């Protein structure tokens, strides 16, 4: 019998169903990210990436829960390219959350969820910063004289030749020739005056607002890897957050033990020193720096100090006085104690006497508390 064959072809260009549900999935992933923010922002792969714009962070897609077997307790069947004998090793367990692809490369079901949807660093930052705000933002610190700044934000058919938009012009030319169906014999793309596109700009008043972060860290012997990593994470997000709000964010790194000095960023996070701790030294240093370089009338100043709180007892009253001065000239002062024990330090209790809400005191005991600390300081 002869078959009637129907072969058809339709226009599917408006078929968006997959994309619609995909964007819903993405929305839900973002909701989850918000809930997991505390864990995510301390992820080393982000912090150590220096936040380059195109950095993508691995993100598990949303899980679809069901009753299923424990993959790790199951006996699986596989196929080899050669004969396999009992005892042969196929692979190692992958570090949790790391790496792409399937955990073991085997089986059908449980491995699947390890595929990752990627959320760009920017997405993450946006979600994070949605929750934060800049406290005590001082409008007066905008200089009165604003200078104009051009902003290229439109494309037109007429304009200055110097501002020709080459890419769009070429596209127009290709489009026109495709429509006319008269492809040039020698296949040269010709540009006619109608193809030309120009970038145009508007001028906007530009308010230069400046902010400076004074990153202060205790580098005495008691500050270990963990403490440094925590403070680094905190500063990492802090800088990114401030850059979003200010044209110009400067950062100065001040390290101290019993004496304070300015160091480079690298030294700040890597070098460890020994000795005792005298916190007043760095407060003094910061105040001098502010007086010299950052007049409070023109700068939004954010000093943040991380320590393990192990301050020499006799120094506490001096530290308190200097801290009061520091709070006065700054928008917000953060004081973070990174502790692994459950008591808090005498310096902390001393500083608690300052009632000015501009002073934000936080204690971090665990990696995932960085997020709460950020929220405390920037709220």
């Amino acid at each position, binding site marked *: 019998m002869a078959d009637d064959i129907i072969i058809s072809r339709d226009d599917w260009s408006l078929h968006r169903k997959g994309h619609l549900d995909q964007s819903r999935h993405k929305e839900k992933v973002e909701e989850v990210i918000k809930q997991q923010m505390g864990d995510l922002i301390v992820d080393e792969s982000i912090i150590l990436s220096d936040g380059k714009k195109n950095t993508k962070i691995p993100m598990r897609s949303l899980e679809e829960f069901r009753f299923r*077997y424990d993959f790790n307790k199951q006996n699986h069947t596989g196929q080899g390219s050669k004969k396999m004998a009992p005892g042969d090793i196929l692979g190692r367990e992958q570090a949790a959350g790391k790496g792409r692809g399937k955990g073991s490369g085997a089986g059908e079901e449980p491995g699947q969820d390890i595929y990752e949807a990627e959320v760009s660093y920017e997405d993450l930052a946006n979600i994070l910063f949605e929750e934060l705000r800049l406290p005590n933002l001082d409008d007066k610190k905008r200089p009165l004289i604003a200078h104009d700044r051009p902003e290229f934000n439109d494309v037109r058919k007429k304009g200055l030749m110097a501002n020709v938009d080459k890419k769009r012009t070429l596209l127009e030319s290709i489009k026109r020739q495709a429509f006319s169906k008269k492809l040039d014999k020698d296949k040269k793309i010709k540009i006619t005056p109608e193809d030309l596109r120009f970038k145009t700009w508007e001028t906007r008043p530009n308010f230069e607002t400046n902010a400076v972060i004074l990153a202060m860290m205790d580098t005495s012997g008691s500050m270990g890897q963990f403490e440094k990593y925590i403070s680094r994470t905190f500063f990492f997000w802090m800088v990114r957050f401030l850059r979003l709000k200010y044209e110009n964010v400067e950062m100065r790194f001040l390290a101290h033990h019993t004496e304070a000095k300015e160091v480079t960023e690298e030294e700040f996070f890597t070098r460890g020193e020994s000795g005792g701790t005298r916190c007043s030294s760095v407060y003094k240093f910061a105040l001098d720096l502010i007086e010299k370089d950052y007049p409070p009338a023109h700068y939004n100043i954010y000093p943040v100090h991380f320590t393990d709180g192990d301050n020499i007892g006799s120094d506490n009253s001096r530290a308190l006085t200097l801290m009061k001065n520091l709070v006065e000239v700054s928008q917000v002062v953060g004081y973070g104690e990174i502790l692994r024990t459950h008591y808090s330090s005498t310096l902390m209790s001393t500083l608690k006497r300052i009632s000015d809400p501009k002073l934000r005191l936080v204690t971090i005991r665990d990696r995932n508390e960085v997020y709460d600390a950020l929220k405390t300081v920037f709220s």
Partner: protein
Amino acid sequence: MDSEMEALSKAAQEIAQVARGMGLDFYSVNFEIVPAEALYTFGAYGMPVRFTHWSFGKAFYKMKMQYDLNLSRIYELVVNTNPAYAFLLEGNRFVQNKLVIGHVYAHVDFFKHNHYFSRTPKDMVERMSAHAERIHDYEIKYGRDKVEKFMDAVLAIQEHVDYRAHIGPLQEFENLGKLERMSERQLFNQMGCQGNCDKGVVKSLGKGNSVKQTKKGVASPYEDLWEDLSRDDSGVDSPHEFEDLLLYLIKFAPGLEHWQKDIVSIIREESLYFYPQIETKIMNEGWATFWHARIMRELSLTDSEAIEFALMHSQVVQPSRLGLNPYYLGVKIWEHLAEKRSISELFELREIENDLSFIRNHLSKELVEDLNLFNYRKVGAHWQVTENEWEKVRDNLVKQLVNGGHPRIVVIERDFEGKGGLLLKHCHEGVDLDIIYLEKTLALVQFLWGKSVALETVVDNKKFIYESSNGMVSRRLASKSEENNGK
């Protein structure tokens, strides 16, 4: 473009003739050429039109990305209906499409004749699009978030339907009104085979298994069978163990509104429709691959076409590194069978078997050795080969196919400890459940049930009861007396 379609249509005609000449018998097939965008959507949803849910979006994104990165490619997609629909990927080359068309005809032959498909509705395209509309209406009426939250929970247990729906009296539970009027007794009787946890399927395989379920020494392998029969005869009412979780919810969940029951019933119907495809994946893909190769050999191909065909065919049956490529495994078994049996015997096998029986009956010693199959598991931090004896490999594969690879969960009662809670039981067959998933899923079932939901399972040889109430999941050892009984 028209000439291309014409050539394709001519080729399809020729292939259909060749295929029928070889004995394949299929519904007529409507082919449609679609862009990747559309094909991958169908692949993710399982159907050209289906209800909306983010999990499909996730699947679509994964699949599409694989395609965009050139990692994998779906050439075709067949829908099991009468007439069947087959979608071909735009940009397939002519010879690729020839292969795909042969492949499609063999699939449709399988759908038409395999017993497990005998009760799948042949108008599923229309049904599913009606489902999609109904769910969309609910979204408008009750709000998207509310519907979505409900569907999240139902989809989490969508596998727990009565997968033996192809045998016993024909069940039509889609009519909610009728279902509601049905007495409990009638329902239980209609359900035909009820699973009995303690008479697990694994017993015949489980000799090396650490779990000892046998309470008394079993004298012959069929002892338990007799026992079951005699018990039924004596009329003693053994407690029902209800396997169709979704149906149970529709009938007994205290707080479900009509629209919610309707959604459960929709998801149940679609799950039942897809189940035979899951349980015949290896066979069906093997069958289609086996036949496309034979069909292509009958066509007159140019040299370059022949090479292209060989290349594509070898990609399709490429062994994957650790997992098992169902195309490859399936086609190898069929080819192996074809060496020893007549074609008519092959046709008979494609009628009566599913993956489980197919592997159990036909994965031979030579094949296991020829394909270098082995069992492996996690030992410490390593994945290690544990066995390569052919019977153990076969049995392990079979075990993974039991119940479609899903744990068997049955309902024991709906007034647990007198508080209206639902008690489920995991029929432990040697492998523990994923506890994180168990806890999350239990909370979802609780959301559906309204009151608390408990599940009995075994973790590291100890019986535990997990209970979810008020959004909290707790765990406790099953009571002592029960445990003693279990031993």
